[in-house]
């Protein structure tokens, strides 16, 4: 039946992660560092609010944009945290995870004439979503020597007058890199000079371990050029609830809401009620999780450095991205052999783009016991290769 698929879908490569997932699934007793979601369960108060809303019979559609109360709370949250002002009436749209928001931004802003600029390495969905919107993609390389921060010199090299949208995703999956306000200012200048729009995916913003996160939209002149995308999955351990949002100029939000109303209608109401509670009462639980991630982060960076691999210090998200070039293996071969020989699952860096080659992504959303055991096994593997 393959022939019935559109040529575009037929030829679209599946996510490299999927391939690896299938391989891991066939094996037993694997310690996995391959997961891109928190190991914590959603804080109880948030779960309880979801359950309570069900008990109250809150099982209907909400307005397309999402529950007004949730939009109001988000508006307040973004104002308090970043000094951003978004009108809950028409500048915030609640989506099914930040993933839907990414898709909506691409589809609302990109067409066949346009080019999207995407940092490399980065989350696997940006390129395919832009391509599904009909646009072309140019990847902007980032490197370990520069802590995987996006640089204007690299943007200039790939820039084309057809470029319309720049994707930013910091703290970054897979590298754990962050961009400080100082790092972002030249990017903002570049965006202004070249009249670009920005999709800033800040889903990991709360998981920043040094300094404070700067929202790109809060930089001078960037508010109306930026679609600020985030969600509850990472900071509140709510991946399975599928609840995210996008904030931006009302014309953009209006356009995206039209797509959203025909394709999704609204984000699940239970998740919306739970999200309201997350903002209202899970701040302490969130801080507690951040603190624990930070302890594990240190444990992991030190573990990789002690086994002789160079590992830049990631200051955000929950990933480390050690350099495995000294083993003379490609990241894919490294990951496959590590899995077969030591039963540890990591994700090859190449899955996230060509600049990820020579690295592996290891998540520290695991208990310290699991991390310690995994590090020991990886160390044995590496010692045999060096």
């Amino acid at each position, binding site marked *: 039946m393959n022939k019935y698929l559109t040529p575009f879908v037929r030829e679209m490569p599946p996510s490299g*992660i999927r391939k690896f997932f299938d391989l891991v699934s066939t094996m037993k007793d694997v310690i996995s560092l391959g*997961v891109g979601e928190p190991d914590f369960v959603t804080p109880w108060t948030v779960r309880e609010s979801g359950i309570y809303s069900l008990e109250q019979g809150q099982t209907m559609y909400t307005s397309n944009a999402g529950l007004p109360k949730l939009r109001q709370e988000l508006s307040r949250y973004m104002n308090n945290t970043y000094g951003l002002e978004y009108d809950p009436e028409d500048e915030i749209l609640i989506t099914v995870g930040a993933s839907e928001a990414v898709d909506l931004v691409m589809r609302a802003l990109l067409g066949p004439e346009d080019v999207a600029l995407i940092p490399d390495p980065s989350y696997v969905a940006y390129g395919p979503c832009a391509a599904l919107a009909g646009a072309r993609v140019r990847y902007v390389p980032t490197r370990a020597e520069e802590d995987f921060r996006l640089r204007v010199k690299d943007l200039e090299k790939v820039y084309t007058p057809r470029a319309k949208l720049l994707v930013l995703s910091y703290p970054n999956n897979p590298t754990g890199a962050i961009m400080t306000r100082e790092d972002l200012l030249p990017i903002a200048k570049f965006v202004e000079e070249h009249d670009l729009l920005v999709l800033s995916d800040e889903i990991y913003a709360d998981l920043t371990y040094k300094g404070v996160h700067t929202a790109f939209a809060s930089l001078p002149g960037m508010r109306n050029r930026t679609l600020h995308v985030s969600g509850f999955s990472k900071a509140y351990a709510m991946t399975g609830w599928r609840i995210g949002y996008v904030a931006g100029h009302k014309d953009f939000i209006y356009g995206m809401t039209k797509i959203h109303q025909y394709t999704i209608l609204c984000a699940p109401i239970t998740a919306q009620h739970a999200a309201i509670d997350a903002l209202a009462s899970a701040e302490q639980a969130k801080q507690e999780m951040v603190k624990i991630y930070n*302890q594990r982060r240190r444990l992991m960076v030190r573990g990789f450095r002690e086994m002789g691999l160079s590992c830049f210090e990631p200051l955000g998200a929950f990933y480390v991205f050690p350099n495995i070039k000294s083993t003379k293996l490609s990241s894919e071969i490294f990951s496959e052999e590590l899995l077969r020989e030591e039963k540890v699952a990591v994700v090859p860096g190449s899955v996230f783009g060509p600049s990820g080659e020579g690295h592996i992504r290891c998540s520290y959303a695991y208990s*310290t016991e699991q991390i310690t055991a995994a590090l020991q096994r990886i160390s044995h593997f590496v010692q045999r290769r060096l």
Partner: protein
Amino acid sequence: MLSTEDRQLLELISQDCRLSPEELSVQTGLSPEHITKRIKQWEDDKVIVQYHPHINWEKTGEPQVAALIEVKVLPQRSFGFDKIAKRLIKYPQIKTVYLMSGGYDLALIIEGKSMQEVALFVAEKLATLEHIQSTATHFVLRRYKQDGVALMGQEETPERLVVSP
């Protein structure tokens, strides 16, 4: 007020006091020497009072009974609560002594091998003490959670995908 670093150290130790200064150092970013010094200071100052494992005795099959005793004390001139509490804490059967606000004065937790043993202790030793006006004994039927740790009804660990983006 504790500094953020001190609080983090104490929290880590309170969760697992077997962590070595080196292990604590990796997780906190503080030097092992600093950590050793800090812990020694806390031990000397009785901030860290004791290191002990948290045992769920019910699981061992060992007979063990606990009771919460409400105690009303007869207030008398120059014989305050502290004085009677000082007498009570000497009994090894009494594990906990609190001064309370509300309907009674002292709350005790007493442990023994049987209900009879606890009841006898209350009747013969405790109730007969001078200045104790009355006691009310409440036996513990089941422990669901103690010192922040759930002892039963633990949720199963939900399964995550092994690899995800």
